[in-house]
């Protein structure tokens, strides 16, 4: 009963940490939508001798191409597994099995300039993002990039460092980065401070987790002493504690991770950073549990001395 209670509390802590990590990523996604689907790591660049050929076409990315005269009219090159902004699809339309399609905002004045090869399949469902609402996206999954459509680009990737991914795609010498301004909720100071609040919460949860693990393990000091004085080997004591504490916690927290993983598939965000961080948080818990176990066994057996039977 007591064991279950401690494990449940530890999982509650992991659940809260998972929610905090997820919320940081979720807030980033909202900011990204309000900023015209560009996040804080997106890169803006213009070509410097680049001919539109991509070196490696395996990465996940969105490359928005536009002309500075009409920055709201974008040729969007999508590759790999990339989440698009929320879309209200026109009845019977979807992105499946299409290599070219158009998405437009509800504030767009004219659609006469959309080429015929791009069929409008939906509208951006982003009521607070006036930037997306006034944009036309001509989405293409084809690798070819026609520089006649514009020499300015915005690049976003969910696969880690955007600069490294872009360098692998087109080479650092062939583009010139443009310092990018942030818009929408990105600029709000309260938004920038909120991840700090959640980070302090996660630190607090980490300390709580260590505290609970410590109390849980130290609770059985007397049992370790009895095992030790009755002549049990260290391996037997360790085996007993691993069986009683580490394994149940290990398996149940793995179950928790699987639950979060399922949630990720049901409700994906722009990137999976939150899930990686949660995995580190859970693994760090296992490590702390292991270290505390070893520390307690040594303290309550070897360091106690005395006569063993």
């Amino acid at each position: 009963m007591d064991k279950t209670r401690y494990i449940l509390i530890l999982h509650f802590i992991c659940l809260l940490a998972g929610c905090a990590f997820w919320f940081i990523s979720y807030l980033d996604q909202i900011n990204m939508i309000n900023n015209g689907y560009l996040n804080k790591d997106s890169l803006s660049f213009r070509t410097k001798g680049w001919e539109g050929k991509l070196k490696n076409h395996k990465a996940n990315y969105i490359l928005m191409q536009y002309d500075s005269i009409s920055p709201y009219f974008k040729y969007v090159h999508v590759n790999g597994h990339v989440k698009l902004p929320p879309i209200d699809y026109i009845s019977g339309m979807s992105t499946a099995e299409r290599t070219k399609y158009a998405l437009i905002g509800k504030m767009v004045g004219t659609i006469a300039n959309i080429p015929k090869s791009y069929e409008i399949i939906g509208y951006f469902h982003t009521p607070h993002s006036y930037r997306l609402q006034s944009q036309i996206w001509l989405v293409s999954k084809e690798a070819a990039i026609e520089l006649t459509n514009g020499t300015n680009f915005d690049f976003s990737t969910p696969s880690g460092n955007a600069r490294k991914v872009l360098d692998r795609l087109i080479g650092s010498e062939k583009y010139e980065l443009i310092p990018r301004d942030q818009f929408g909720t990105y600029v709000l100071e309260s938004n920038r401070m909120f991840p700090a609040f959640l980070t302090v919460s996660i630190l607090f949860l980490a300390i709580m987790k260590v505290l609970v693990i410590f109390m849980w393990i130290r609770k059985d000091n007397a049992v370790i002493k009895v095992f030790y004085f009755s002549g049990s080997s260290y391996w037997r004591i360790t085996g007993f504690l691993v069986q009683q504490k580490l394994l149940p916690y290990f398996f149940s927290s793995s179950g928790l991770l699987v639950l979060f993983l399922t949630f990720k598939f049901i409700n994906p965000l722009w990137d999976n950073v939150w899930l990686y961080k949660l995995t580190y948080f859970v693994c760090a818990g296992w490590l702390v549990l292991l270290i505390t176990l070893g520390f307690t066994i040594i303290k309550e057996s070897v360091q106690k001395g005395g006569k063993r039977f």
Partner: protein
Amino acid sequence: MKVRKLLFKQTPYLNVLSGVAAILFCSLILVLILNLQKSNIETTAAHQFNGKNVYQISDNLYNEQEKLFFSNPNSFSILYQFGQKLRQSNKFDYYNAVWQPIELADFKIDQQFGPYYEPGRGLQIREFEGKSYATVASFQINAKVFEYNNIGLQEGSFFSSNSYFFEEDKDIPILLGAAYKGIYQVGDRLELLHYSRHFNGVVTGILKPQQRIFTMNDPEAVIDRSVILPVRYFKEPPKNTEGIFAKASLYSHMNGTIITNLSPMELRAALEPINVESNFEAYSIIGAESLSILALSKMTDTNRLLLFIVSITTGFMLAGLYLWTLSLLIKRNIPVYMVMLISGATMDSIQMLSSRRLMLTIGITSLFPTTLLIIIVENPFYFLVVYYMVIVIVVLLLVGMVKLMSKKLFRRLDLVQQLKG
């Protein structure tokens, strides 16, 4: 004190960890207060435009009409009168945010400050009276722009009320966008050309990063890479009308934005006396796209609601968790409490001891985040008062809960059995 030492020695690691948790708990309260205050300010700023209509005054003086208008010797006086009456009207707010590049002398060259940098054009440099001047992005704004937008300053001071009037040979105060930090400093004197006329300027302040203002062309015009000058209204009709300075200034003064609760018809009626008094009617009123303005306000509103719900939920859950660990700590200290009971302590004094211990822990640990507050916040007094008020309420609630918990715990314990060991 001896008892407290004893209790500390009983579980030293747990006590240190519990202290760290208390510091983080107090920091959470502090960050929460700071954040709610910030989001309040930002929402208020965005709400300034809420429910209001925004109109742009646009003159109709093109080509032949312009020539015809300026053939009138009173033309400058008419434009001056019209602009003056617009900004002095008490029926609406007259908002001037003019995007107009200026030229800076001996500019420390960096392409990104050029007004056309993003479309791909580099800095334009030209010689003027023996000096080279670079064209840089600039806004000329009036006091209403500061009122309607939540503009923050990281150094120096804003414009004084006198700055908004043109005076011959007087230095122009300059505010610089955050990207200029490190290039120029507050107090630096700059030579500049505004509508091709030479002025001396002095840097009075540097803005915080990621500052933006509402303009008719862009509801979120970012001013980080811009030079901000005050719109300088003439105190009387300009006498020297040579060059483009007087004419262009008068145009920019009158082609402003009107922010009001008035409907288009009511606005026309409100402008009627101004037309008559200034004898000027060659202009149009353009209504602004309200969707983007509304989106900004809705965006900040939703944002605040989201932050508020998540902050409060997280706060409650973490407080519950903290309370639970406090109860575990009390349980671990039961042997010490037993010894105290044998030595003549009463249940009340033990409960009092655990409550005082909690108060002492949070009292000491609450000091740590205040150091941070004093460093990062400019006027920390208000936040300190609110912070300690919240801390006192939270401590009182926790103490009450701890008392209840310990009472319940001791009631369930078989003391005789425990004392026998």
